[in-house]
């Protein structure tokens, strides 16, 4: 997969936990254009290991001079976001993938309801530019914990005017999904990005009201989780390797020199799916891609986020 070499042109502390990074291409050339809702995967060299984390592009899709990504510091994670917050400086260089969009706006929509929770606001910032440009009807509903965590509120108010609605949990303001979705005109599409319980509650409310699946869109990137180490055998490459506690299976496969397919690295897109030939324990699925039946079958694994609780697992790669 081809990569873009970028360097950090500016860093802004947006809230206590959120930093915004402006990325420009290393050689000063323009970056590829993209559509609202796209993300890139950052390859970060942390203590000699390459971590690859997906982040939504939140800059304007019309701007190819630089890309903007925002990172929320996740203390209980494997360190990618902490590294971004504590180690990355103006001038730092790393590689990113070309933009990929797994959260695109439906071209058939007549109205769009955008629902963001916390840092889940980021994909909507690029989508709003597209919606304003195409003069498509929309509403943005942005929920966050407390006033000091309302990242980008002023920019959003400026971009969206009275289309934006803010919900501050510490003031007791919550989004009532049933209320929000029950009287929307035909042709409305709803998009949600945020914490898992919020995403699930929104999807459940829409389904209960009879919204067709094609009108319900969500993006949930799962970060790879820390877990017990286990051994993997790649049946086709005939390689055996160990997945350490703080590395994802996909990262361990890459470290072993195998060019495994991937796209989102967040358990959303399905590109990295591997067939499980044998496993002497159980698979711990963390992705949002496989169906429950597929997960229960134990025949498939998404190595970007999922792990195994076993001694040995054999996959067809």
């Amino acid at each position, binding site marked *: 997969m081809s990569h873009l070499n970028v360097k950090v042109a500016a860093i802004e502390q947006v809230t206590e936990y959120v930093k915004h990074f402006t990325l420009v291409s290393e050689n000063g050339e323009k970056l590829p254009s993209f559509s609202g809702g796209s993300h890139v995967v950052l390859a970060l060299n942390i203590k000699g290991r390459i971590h690859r984390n997906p982040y939504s592009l939140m800059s304007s899709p019309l701007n190819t001079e630089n890309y903007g990504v925002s990172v929320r510091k996740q203390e209980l994670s494997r360190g990618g976001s902490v590294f971004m917050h504590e180690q990355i400086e103006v001038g730092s260089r790393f590689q990113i993938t070309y933009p990929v969009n797994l959260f695109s706006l439906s071209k*058939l929509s007549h109205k769009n309801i955008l629902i963001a929770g916390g840092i889940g606001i980021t994909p909507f910032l690029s989508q709003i530019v597209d919606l304003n440009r195409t003069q498509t009807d929309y509403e943005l509903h942005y929920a966050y914990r407390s006033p000091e965590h309302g990242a980008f509120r002023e920019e959003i108010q400026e971009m969206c005017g009275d289309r934006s609605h803010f919900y501050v949990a510490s003031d007791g303001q919550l989004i009532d999904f049933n209320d929000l979705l*029950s009287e929307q005109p*035909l042709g409305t599409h709803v998009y949600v990005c945020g914490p898992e319980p919020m995403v699930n509650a929104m999807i459940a409310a829409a389904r209960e*009201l*009879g*919204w067709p699946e094609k*009108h319900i869109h969500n993006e949930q990137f799962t970060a790879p989780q820390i877990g017990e180490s286990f051994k993997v055998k790649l049946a086709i490459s005939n390689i055996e390797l160990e997945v350490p506690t703080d590395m994802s299976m996909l990262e361990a496969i890459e470290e072993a020199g195998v060019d495994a397919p991937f796209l989102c690295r967040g358990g959303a897109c399905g590109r990295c799916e591997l067939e499980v030939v044998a496993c002497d324990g159980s698979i711990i699925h963390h992705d949002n891609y496989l169906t429950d039946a597929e997960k229960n079958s134990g025949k498939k694994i998404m190595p970007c986020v999922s792990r195994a609780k076993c001694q040995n697992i054999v996959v067809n790669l």
Partner: protein
Amino acid sequence: MERQYWIRSKPVYTSLLWHEKATAHLVIAEGDGGMAVLKLLQQKYPTQVVRGFYAKSSDSLKNYADIISSLIPDEFTVFANANDALKSLKNSLAEYHMGTRFYVAGSEAFIWQVAKELYDFGVQDDDIEKELCGTLARSVYCVHCKAITHNVHHNIVNCTGCQRKLFVRDHFSRRLGAYMGLMVDAEQPGDIPTINEVYP
């Protein structure tokens, strides 16, 4: 008819079934589509609002309008023809919200006329339940002169626009509500395969 392979654009029609999760139900039927409506009424009736549009057609086998009206007079409005029903449907769609379920039954031409009205309100083809009733007659789009010939029952038809003899394919345009028709004797003028009634 194509064999050995499957044209993905060819629509597949099923039997109408009420959706359990819904805010309202809109049933739109024409002619023999009345039978599909009667089959719907034999299922557990929804708790949500039901509204129906039924268009009479001289082609239909039975007078379904009277039967439907005797069963659920308040919910269904009967129209003299498809155009009146479509006009009334179009004028009422703005009142409906997301969560409204759509059920359409009748000839293929009628089904896709309704789908077009719904599409203008952002309702996608996939969101509409469709039951084909009464006839397999096709509308055929001439790829040469772009005219559409309606009510085609045979595998080969004379184009009403350019008089070419068109072979009726399974390739279907949802936007036009018509199958693709190609000149059948372009390479060997006058060499016309046997013409059969295949879409009764």
